[in-house]
Each structure stands twice: as C-alpha cells, then as structure tokens.
C-alpha cells in the first residue's frame, strides 16, 4: 500500500512538473481532430487542416544549442583549465571544479531530452 501511495505521488508530481516545464505538454481537455471530408466518387479529394511540416522535428534550435553549447562548454572547460591553464578558480575545490565541468554535460543532457520528448 505504501508503495502504491508513493508511486501515485511520483506520478502526480512528475506529471505536474512535466506540464509546467514542457510548453504545450498538457492535453487539451476533450480535444477533437478537425472534421475530415471525403468527396463522393468522381469528385476531387479534399483534406481539411493545414499539414504540419514533417521537418518540424529538425527545427529545435534551443535544444540543439543546449547540446552543442553544453558539450563545447565541457570540452573547452577541461582543455582550457587543465590543458592550457587559460583560467582557474581562485580557491578551487574538487567539488566546485567538478560541478563547473559537469554543468556542460547537464546542459547537453537537457537539450537531448528536449529533442527526445518532442520527437
């Protein structure tokens, strides 16, 4: 029973957070497709509603920027700080150093996830 309550809580929280984060993620209540039309034999076919371009999937510049930027941030950070010594923390700890570099990976992961869920 406890597991069920916990799982219900997880589902509810994840669902609410998802709809808050993903624009347009929430289902419109009781939505319908546009009414379809087909002609009688011999007439010309009609299709109602503008087609959605199939290339829409390829146009997520923000998500792509997150991926590219995040990976670049990670690579440049590692190479710049530890390879060439371009910059460094005034008072560095392993924790802040790790957090700094991993932030790029997180950004890339968020971008990848955004692309995935909008697929």
């Amino acid at each position, binding site marked *: 029973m406890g597991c*069920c309550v916990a799982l*219900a809580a997880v589902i509810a929280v994840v669902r609410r957070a998802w709809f808050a984060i993903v624009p347009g993620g929430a289902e419109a209540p009781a939505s*319908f497709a546009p*009414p379809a039309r*087909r002609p009688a034999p*011999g*007439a010309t076919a009609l299709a109602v509603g503008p087609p959605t371009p199939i290339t829409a999937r390829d146009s997520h510049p923000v998500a792509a920027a997150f991926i590219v930027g995040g990976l670049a941030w990670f690579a440049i950070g590692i190479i710049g700080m530890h390879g060439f010594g371009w910059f460094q923390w005034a008072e560095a700890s392993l924790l802040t150093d790790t957090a700094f570099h991993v932030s790029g990976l997180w950004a890339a992961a968020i971008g990848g996830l955004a692309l995935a*869920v909008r697929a």
Partner: protein
Amino acid sequence: MTTLATDERVRLLLPTPQRATPPTTARRQRRAILTYGALWSLGALLGFLDLGTRWTAAGLGLAFPGGGLAWGGQPVLGVVAALTFVLAVFIWWATGPTVLPPLVWAASIALGALLADPGSTTTQVAVLAVGPALIATARLTYLVRHTGQVRAGARINERLAEVEFVITGSPGLDVRVPVTEHTEDDLRHLRFALDLALQPLESFEGFTRIDQFREAATRYQLNALGYALAMAQFTRTPAFTGYLAEGQRNAIEKMLDRRTWGYWAIENAWGNLRFDRDPVDNSENIMLTGFHGLMIGMYGTLNDDRYAQPGAVTYRWSDRADYAHDFGTMAAALHRNVQGSPFALFPCEPNWIYTVCNTFGMNAMLSHDRLHGTDYFADVEGRLRESYETEFLRPDGRIVGVRSSHLGLSWNFWSGPAVQITTSYWLHAALPDVARRTWWLLRERELLHEDGRTTTRPGVSARLDPGSYQLGTDTYSKVVTLMAAREHGDEELASAIQRDLDQGDVAEADGARRYSDGSTFTNLYAALGRFGRHSALRDLVVFGAPDAWREGPVLAEVAYPDVLVAKAVTDGRALDLVLRPGAGPVRTAILVERLRPGQEYGVTGAAQQSIVARPDGSAVIEIDLGGRLELRIAPR
C-alpha cells in the same frame, strides 16, 4: 453467449510452482546478486586494506549508493544519493536508459571519495550491512508473500476444478455473430476516430502529446485507432472499404513518421549503448513491432496485402536514411526475438519485459501465419505458454505485468487489475484458455458492483488513465473491462458498463463524440470495446474473414461525412447496406466494386432499379439520403 460446434470446453488449473522463484528469473536474480556481491566485496576490501579515507569512502559507495557520503560526514548527501539512485531506477524503467543507474551510482562514489572525512568504524559496518540487509529483507518478504499466494492458488484451484472454459473455435464460413448495425451513438464515436485518422498524414491534431516513451506516446494512440477502425469494419461493415480502410492505412503510415518511432534511436542509445536506429531489426522494441504488426495484420485480413510488399513499411528517419521493412520482416523479427530470449517473452524498452506487450507480438505472428502461410507462432507457442504460466504468473493467478530481463525483478504495481484485464483481452487470440482463466479470476475478485455500476477495486493502476497519466479516474478501467467482457462473451456486464460510460460526461463536435473524462487513447480503446463482440478479437486474429467477405462486392467509395455506413455485408454475391446521412439530407453517388463484370444487378433503395457492372466490376449508384436507408444490390 453464442457457442458453436467448433467450440471446446476445457479446464485449466493454476500451475503449482515447483520452487519459489521460476527458473529463468532465478538465474537472472542469482547473476544480479552475485554481481552485487562482487562489488560489495571489493568495496569492503578497499576499507579493510586501510588505503586511506578516500579509498574507504569509495569502497563504501560501491557497497551501497551514498554509502561513502554517509560514512564520510555527509549523511544528508548520502540519503540524497540513495534517493537519486532510486529515482534513476524509476527513470530507467520509464524510458529505458540502462546507463543511468550505474552513472548515478558511480557519481555518488566519486562524490563520496572527494568529500570524505574519516568516519567511524561503526558507520562503516552499518553502511556495509545496508545492502545485504535490504536484499535479505526483500527475499524474506517475497517468500512470505509467495507462501500466501501458493495457499491462495490452492484454494482457487479447488474452485477451478469445477469450472469449464469455452474456447471458441472457427466461426465457420459464416460469422459467429451476425454483422450488426451501428447505432447513431456508435456512429458518433466512430466519427471521433475517423476524424483523427483522415487528417493529412503529417498532421497529429487531436492526439495527446506528452511524451514518446510511455503509455501516452503517439504510437499507442495510433495503434488503438487502427484496432478500433478494424474492429468496426469486422463486426459492422466488412463490405465497406472506402474511407474506413483509408483511415486504417493512415494510422499504419503515421507510425512510419520519425516523430512516432524515433524514440527508439534514443532508447537504443542510452539503453543498449547501440547507435543503430532500425526499429525492427533489433532484439527488443516489441512495443513497436508487435503493436504495429497487429495493425497491419488486421488491415491485411480485412482489406489487401499492400504492406506485405517489400519496403511497404519503411520507417523514414530523414531524406537520406530510412529502414525498409514489410509485414514479413516484422513477423520474422518477432519470431527471431522470441527464439533468442531466455524468457521467450522479450523486452519493450531495453531490459523491461511486459506481458501485455508480448500479446501483441503473438497476435501479429498469428495474423502473418494465417495470411502468408508461415508457422512463426506455432513454432514458439510452447515456450511462450510455459513462460506465461511460470515466469510471469504468480501462484495466485495474477499475471506479472513487468520483469527486468537483466535483474529478474518485478513489482506489484504492474499486477493491478487494469493490467490484468487488458492482458486477458489481448491474450484471448493466442492463449485463449489462459485468457479465459484470467478473466474468470478478475470477475471473482477484482470487479466491484455498486449501485448497478461496475468498476475495479481501487488502486493506483486502476485509477490511472495511461493515455494522459491522469490519476483519480476509473474511466480507463471501465473501458478495458468493457473490452474484455465483450470479448469473453460477458455481454450483460459489457452492456451495463457501456450504459454507464454513455451516461457520463461526453463532448461533441461536428457530429463526433468522445468521453470527456478520458484521454484520446482511452476513447479509442472505448471505441474498440464498443465495436467488439464475443470472440471478435480471437476470430479476427486467428480465423480471419470468411471467403465471401474477401471476394464479394464491396462499397468502395462514398463521401464523408455525408454518407455514414452503419452496416455493409456481403454473402459473396449480393451487397446489403444501411446508410445514414452525416451532414444533412443529400443526393450523392456511391461506388461499388468487385461486382461480376457485365452482370446485371437489381438495386433496392436507390433511384435506379438496376445496374450493369462495368468491365472492371465497378458501378456507381445515385442515392437520396435523408435518413436511415437500406440498400440491396443483388445479381438478377
């Protein structure tokens, strides 16, 4: 319930388990525990060798996620790390990234080593004890529960020994239940599905868009759409192709859109560390191959074999990359994957095997075998049956909904009634006796009857709409109960649930109707249940359409929504139609095909009293449609 001479009566007891854990599951669990034992031993050794604070913390982190943090003076972070690991396992289950739990675990080890201050020996011992203690507790709990389930199973078997299940056989040259006529309400719900299906291929208006991984994914809505339209054709209008067949084709072809199937490229990458995007030629993903294959099997049974042609099912990734398949390669992949899986059942998401998903794989193989003369299902039926009856069945008769193929683990959430009911429906074609027994058990202990209404016992999965992840609604439970009750010949119960659903909140637009408190997915399953009948799924998948339906005249083209087809059936020679106007009174034409070329036909119900079929076997007939119209076209 209608019974025919070909039906048989069988008894099927619950199998008595020979040991607490089924053999393949036990092997996987042993392997997982041994692997964990090796990691735990290495972790403990790092501490005992006294190599320094960081090594000790790393070792404790290896022994248990967050263990190094807890020992090294960061107990809050330790708990956070352990909870993050649990969350990672949840995400692994939900979307398949097998790499996530090990990554989180590794990160917690690294963080523990980085932040560690020397901890006490007592804490060290306590951290080392957590993992083994949890495993021992889980095993003990399982054994106690298993013992109870064995006792429950024995009690159930005493009753099952007296119960005979009717396994429906071939409905013969005619159908089991005569083709019936859509009511006006039926047609409104059908229009909801048709409007979804008949929009341009690239358009997905009216579909729920939340994610492409779990139950609300577009592909499941498309599957349900295809099944509902096919069922409407099978039980109401088998002699009507027209926009009804076009809608099924659209649903099948929308599945080829990268936005629908592209999730697999991601899941295969983060679940298997493979970068092959092919959604069919792999060892998993039955959530696509099985479901999509069944859509094609239903279409091929009722219409034509275009999707059996090479390359007819081509999944498009981009202008430069696509994956060419057909019904044959999909069925072969299903067969190959069953053969290659130690469980016989094989995974949907990387690692996760679902019993209900595998029913679709079986149904797709059965359809292909019947249509194309293969023996895929017969070849693997024994292994699948054995696995459903041992690896995926609790001693008390509940089907285990999900199991990790790597770890052998499962959990109760997926043994809830909604999962059981859905499985009892989809299993009826391939393993009818198991499906019938599951339905009997559900009726005995899971369905509640209160104030003339029927629902399932409360529980998270029984109050969840999987098409929108909305909690607190039993609409989906009612819908799948309707589907299963009708399929198993429990028509009194099915009619009562149908009435209950119809008396609830509905929304209408342009002649289409849906239940307001159900997702699009749930509404499409509701249509599938509405159009079902006793053994409809089993007849459609196992026995197919009578020859007369495949060879006789068909209504091939009419205007939509001007002409709604409430009934269309042929005996192989004549065509009987019932038509209704969908957009007001109209004079319109209908196209009939598969007539005998040059043959004169008498027409009843139209302005003209006779027609002569063209050389291609077609004829156009003009009709005045102001209300319900019966039309008969018969050779003279």
